[in-house]
């Protein structure tokens, strides 16, 4: 929106001010209106300061534009509706012509002033009005969010760079004019040294060079300001990038967050483009300097510094813009990222968010594992196969942007020389970490080159855990979880030699993510509370501390042979394999303590049941508990947990449907009637029953169909619930294995046949391979515990820790000299030099030298004698972009010009021209 449009939207008070502004007829308002865009686009301030030719040109252009407008009005309105308007505009044009014909610079002056006043009024209006105003003027943008902030800054910067380019164009014009006149002057001086016009010409030259000098300083000030702003922009971008990295880290361990990079790529590329443009501008300025320079020229002093600063900025941006877009992941056997199995293929993708590349520079990305980590004593070493380099490509059809996909690579363990296998012989591994706690880092290196700027970019994956046996995957994942949950330094590969503890608040969140990620359903507060109690005792609070040892080493509950994580991961596996739908639809309460279970059920109708994960089954077991009433007092029964082995043969909904409790004298009945709180069984589980064909007696069939059902029976000798202690029906410490009065007999698998003629035919149905002879309990016992033996040899508190300095992990790039500066003398008495009466220069301290300063080649004792030395005017101005190599012999002209406002007599030295 143009400034004039904003003016028109002002309220009446401020508009009144605008009217006053235009009341003295310096510039008729209709001219301002009709040429609004054009007027605002010109740099009137600039024109004012340079010579009048530019002002004259602008004046003429303005009149031409007015003529244009008049013509357009005449064309559009045959019916003369806007005759008055036309008349006014024509009169204004004639007025302007008459008034400023001879002083176009005056008009420039006036317009510049008016525009500034307008801006002031707009700003005043903006501060007066609350931000609720629909369209705030651009000077007072209300920052609504970081995104807008970045967008605005990018746009602002783009505009500034564009403006700078235009400004440089003007600078070049000025310089060429000066160059030309200077040459003419030299020729004249050589041919006719006594020409009286020489002096006048020299004065003119002085004005030109002064103007040129001011422009150069202006351009440098603008670039300085621009670099300051772009510093801020870069910081904002970096903070967005680190937010993204954080998101990615959390997404790796199951959180749901947006990890797309389009926005960031757009921003980084935009910013880099502007910075590279700026670099070109600086190079161009260098060329300008090579062509014309003079004493006091600001370019040679400031350009190198600006260039250094800009290059530093660009490489800083580039370095952060090189990211691992997808962390390493195997397609098989585990979908969990950052888990790699030796000799298994995995893929990883890196991206450079700055989408700029030289076509002729091949961008090769080198991939390495554990590069530069010689201190990883006892770690296994790996080779990456088949190749360790790949070329980065831009905008493939499937993938936009500058990416490099390593998709079919794998890791092969380096066999250590000599004897020993695995971890390089047992002797060397003394005190080292178990392999699932060894963190490895994959690093990517890219040699980047664009527009002559070279730098090496490096990025690394989050630490990965490499295992060689599938049964290590679960504990490997525990390491990944723990590390990323705490957001530890990704470079700290020895994290697990002294792992930090986590709060329950953090851990509970991450545990819920595991379920969310694997099953689309997280854990609710009640479920988490149960898990929390399991880990931290009955009074669980968010700030409770849980150690790595507690999480993944200690047996839980004590006495069992598995840890909390092993148990939980087993349940996760069970849900994924057999209970996904039930879990997703919230039919499984799952994590509920036995005590609470009874509290919940005792209020309910007879036959109300719920599903709960066993706390004593290693690889995940699920059981159901129901309530019955005996003389008004509740009794609770649970069935021995079903594990994968049983569920393999029969799905849980079917078990529930067909479940029967056999008692000696009763007919079998299904005690499971209502799912807690009160959903009828078939309503809750109906959709999940497997399809069954009801026996059709009318049909002649060879066999009647059959199905497996689960039945529990009470022992005949078991007293039929007589001794149910009404006072305390629930005994928390009850061992479900042990058949007490509440528990039901171990399951029996029976084959029920519909046909009495046909006796049980085990194994008849080839679809159902599980033979009843196999005791379903048994397979569980056979499953071995691969973790166990390794745990024994592990020593988490190894002595290796000593080599790590926890104090300052955050200064990797620091100049090693920097932190310890001997110059800072703590002993230095600080105040002794101060005169108590008058505050004087405490800063002048011999210990701390001030800036030595550029020593003055041209001391200005007396400003009246300030000289501007004109030196080395190279006369080749034909090819501004490719200046010829600087000529060796630099012509020196000692010409003495005054500074602005002070024009001394000129003494010319014509020695060399």
């Amino acid at each position, binding site marked *: 929106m143009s400034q004039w449009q904003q003016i028109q939207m002002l309220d009446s008070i401020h508009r009144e001010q605008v009217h006053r502004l235009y009341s003295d007829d310096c510039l008729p308002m209709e001219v301002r209106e009709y040429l609004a865009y054009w007027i605002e686009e010109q740099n009137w301030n600039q024109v004012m300061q340079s010579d009048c030719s530019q002002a004259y040109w602008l004046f003429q252009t303005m009149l031409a534009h007015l003529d244009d407008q008049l013509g357009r009005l005449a064309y559009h309105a045959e019916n003369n509706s806007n005759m008055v308007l036309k008349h006014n505009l024509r009169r204004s044009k004639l007025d302007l012509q008459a008034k400023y014909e001879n002083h176009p610079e005056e008009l420039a002056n006036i317009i510049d002033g008016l525009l500034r006043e307008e801006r002031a009024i707009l700003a005043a209006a903006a501060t007066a009005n609350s931000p609720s105003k629909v369209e705030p003027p651009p000077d007072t943008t209300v920052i609504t969010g970081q995104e807008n902030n970045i967008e605005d800054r990018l746009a602002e910067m783009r505009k500034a760079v564009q403006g700078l380019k235009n400004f440089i164009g003007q600078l070049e014009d000025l310089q060429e004019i000066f160059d030309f006149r200077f040459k003419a002057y030299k020729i004249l001086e050589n041919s006719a040294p006594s020409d009286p016009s020489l002096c006048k010409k020299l004065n003119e030259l002085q004005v030109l060079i002064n103007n040129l000098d001011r422009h150069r*300083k202006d351009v440098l*000030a603008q670039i300085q300001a621009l670099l300051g702003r772009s510093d801020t922009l870069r910081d904002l971008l970096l903070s967005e990038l680190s937010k993204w990295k954080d998101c990615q880290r959390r997404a790796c361990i199951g959180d749901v967050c947006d990890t797309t990079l389009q926005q960031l790529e757009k921003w980084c590329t935009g910013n880099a483009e502007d910075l590279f443009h700026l670099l070109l501008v600086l190079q161009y300025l260098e060329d300008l300097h090579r062509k014309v320079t003079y004493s006091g020229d600001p370019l040679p002093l400031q350009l190198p510094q600006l260039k250094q600063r800009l290059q530093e900025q660009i490489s800083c941006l580039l370095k952060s813009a090189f990211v691992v877009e997808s962390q390493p992941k195997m397609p098989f056997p585990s979908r969990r990222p950052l888990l790699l199995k030796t000799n298994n293929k995995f893929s990883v993708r890196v991206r450079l968010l700055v989408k700029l590349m030289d076509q002729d520079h091949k961008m090769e990305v080198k991939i390495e594992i554990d590069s530069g980590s010689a201190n990883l004593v006892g770690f296994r070493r790996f080779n990456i196969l088949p190749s360790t380099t790949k070329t980065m490509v831009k905008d493939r059809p499937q993938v936009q942007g500058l990416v490099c996909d390593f998709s079919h690579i794998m890791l092969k363990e380096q066999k250590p020389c000599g004897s020993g296998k695995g971890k390089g012989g047992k002797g060397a591994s003394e005190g080292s970490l178990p392999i699932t706690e060894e963190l490895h880092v994959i690093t990517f290196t890219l040699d980047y080159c664009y527009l002559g700027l070279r730098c090496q970019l490096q990025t690394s994956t989050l630490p990965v855990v490499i295992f060689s046996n599938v049964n290590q995957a679960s504990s490997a994942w525990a390491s990944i979880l723990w590390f990323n949950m705490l957001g530890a330094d990704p470079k700290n590969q020895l994290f697990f030699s002294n792992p930090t503890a986590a709060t329950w608040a953090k851990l509970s969140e991450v545990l819920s993510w595991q379920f969310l990620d694997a099953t689309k359903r997280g854990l609710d507060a009640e479920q988490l509370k149960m898990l929390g109690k399991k880990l931290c005792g009955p009074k669980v609070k968010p700030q409770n501390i849980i150690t790595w040892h507690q999480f993944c080493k200690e047996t839980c509950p004590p006495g069992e042979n598995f840890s909390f994580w092993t148990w939980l991961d087993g349940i996760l596996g069970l849900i994924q394999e057999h209970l996904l739908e039930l879990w997703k639809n919230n039919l499984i309460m799952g994590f509920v303590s036995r005590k609470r279970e009874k509290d919940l059920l005792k209020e309910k109708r007879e036959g109300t049941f719920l599903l709960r994960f066993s706390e004593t089954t290693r690889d995940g077991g699920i059981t159901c508990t129901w309530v019955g009433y005996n003389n008004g007092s509740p009794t609770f029964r649970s069935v021995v947990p079903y594990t994968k082995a049983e569920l393999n043969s029969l799905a849980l909904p079917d078990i529930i449907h067909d479940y029967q409790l056999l008692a000696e004298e009763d007919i079998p009945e299904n005690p499971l009637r209502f799912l807690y709180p009160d959903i009828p069984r078939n309503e809750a589980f109906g959709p999940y029953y497997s399809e069954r064909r009801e026996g059709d007696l009318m049909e002649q069939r060879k066999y009647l169909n059959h199905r497996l059902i689960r039945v529990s029976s009470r022992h005949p000798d078991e007293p039929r619930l007589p001794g149910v202690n009404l006072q305390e029906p629930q005994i928390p410490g009850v061992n479900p294995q042990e058949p007490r009065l509440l528990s039901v007999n171990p399951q029996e698998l029976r084959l029920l046949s519909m046909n009495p003629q046909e006796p049980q035919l085990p194994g008849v149905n080839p679809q159902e391979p599980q033979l009843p002879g196999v005791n379903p309990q048994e397979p569980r016992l056979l499953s071995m515990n691969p973790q166990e033996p390794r745990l024994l040899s592990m020593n988490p508190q190894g002595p290796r820790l000593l080599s790590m300095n926890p104090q300052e992990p955050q200064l990797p790039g620091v100049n090693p000299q920097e932190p310890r500066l001997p110059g800072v003398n703590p002993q230095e008495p600080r105040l002794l030099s101060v005169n108590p009466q008058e505050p004087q220069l405490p800063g002048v*301290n011999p210990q701390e030298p001030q800036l030595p300063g550029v020593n003055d080649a*041209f001391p200005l004792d007396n400003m009246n004698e300030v000289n501007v030395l004109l030196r080395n005017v190279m006369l080749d101005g034909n090819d501004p972009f490719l200046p010829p190599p600087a000529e060796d012999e630099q012509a020196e002209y000692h010409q003495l010009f005054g500074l602005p406002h002070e024009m001394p007599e000129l003494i010319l030295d014509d020695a060399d021209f």
Partner: protein
Amino acid sequence: MGQGVGRPDRSKSIRLEEYQTMTAEEQEEEEEEEECRADAVEKHSQQLKAICGLADLKNEAVGLYNIGLSCCLNSLLQVFFMNRHFTAILRRIKVPFGAADQKWSVPYQMLLLLEEMQRGRHEAVHPVGLARCLSKHEVRLFILYDASELFLILWNLIKSQIINLDLAESLAGLYTIQLQESLVCQKCSLETKNSSNMLMLPLPVFAYDSLPIRTLEDALRCFFAPEHLTGDSTCHCERCGKRTPCLQGMKVTCLPHILTLHLKRFCSKNSGRTQKISHYLSFPRNLDFNEILTAEQYQPGALEEGSGLYDLFAVVAHSGSANFGHYCAYIWSLTEHKWYCFNDSSVCQVSWDDVRCTFGNAGLRWSETAYLLVYLKKELAAAV
């Protein structure tokens, strides 16, 4: 004062300036009476208008051309000019009579420059007159000064050249930090006290254990931390009659309205080569000395009004290396309530994000880092 130099075509603003100077003097007395009263914001701005006149209220940010490595001077001038507590004093100076005296007087040349800037015809102004005047006082162009050093030189020149003693006094009062230093002999526990005045506190960027300091608060704490003087730096004790180890402590007795802090980012190494320290050191927008210093270290005297609450007003930032660099100034406009960045002739409105950028970064050796920090006492910033 200064009317003579104005161009006749802007009679409007000149009238305002006259008006302003008269009212400013009248206001001085009123100000004292009203000091204790906490006024509503509306009233403040009324008062503000009355004191400073429209000239200062409009106090637009105007650039200063770099006339020969004068970025340091320009930045400091902007810090002076944007501070209306300073300009209120500057506008009341006596104009020297002779032309030579006028050219010699730094405060007068500053006033001329200020008026030229505020006449508002240009986006930037050449500080030629002032530069010429300063060169008479051995402050030269084409030399890159250290901002803290130049600030002290300028300030002392201004103060010594203000003829009116009262004014000079109030200028001193505005800036002077009063400290008391004590040395306690560890042998005989004789305590010697020594009060001193400073214009700015030179704050270390490394703690005694050579670890980088990360916040301004810590730097202040480190500056005021008591220190055991042993070994070579022992002091002579009168009672013991010899050099003894002693404990050196320091406390603040009076904090000024305008508090200038200097981060010692330039350090010399063994070789004598000066090096710039660019590591991260954050500074807050609000400082509270009651929180930073212990009750023992900060004992506001009877002279000092109000609490030790300060608002950030200006940051003079340096970019580049120790040998050559560039200065710019980030200044909070007291009239517009916005941040501005002054880069010689280029002036732009910025946000706090931009100011935060001058906290520094050890990895970026060429970018801007805060060097001088100017804080204004809270009551003052709100009331006047």
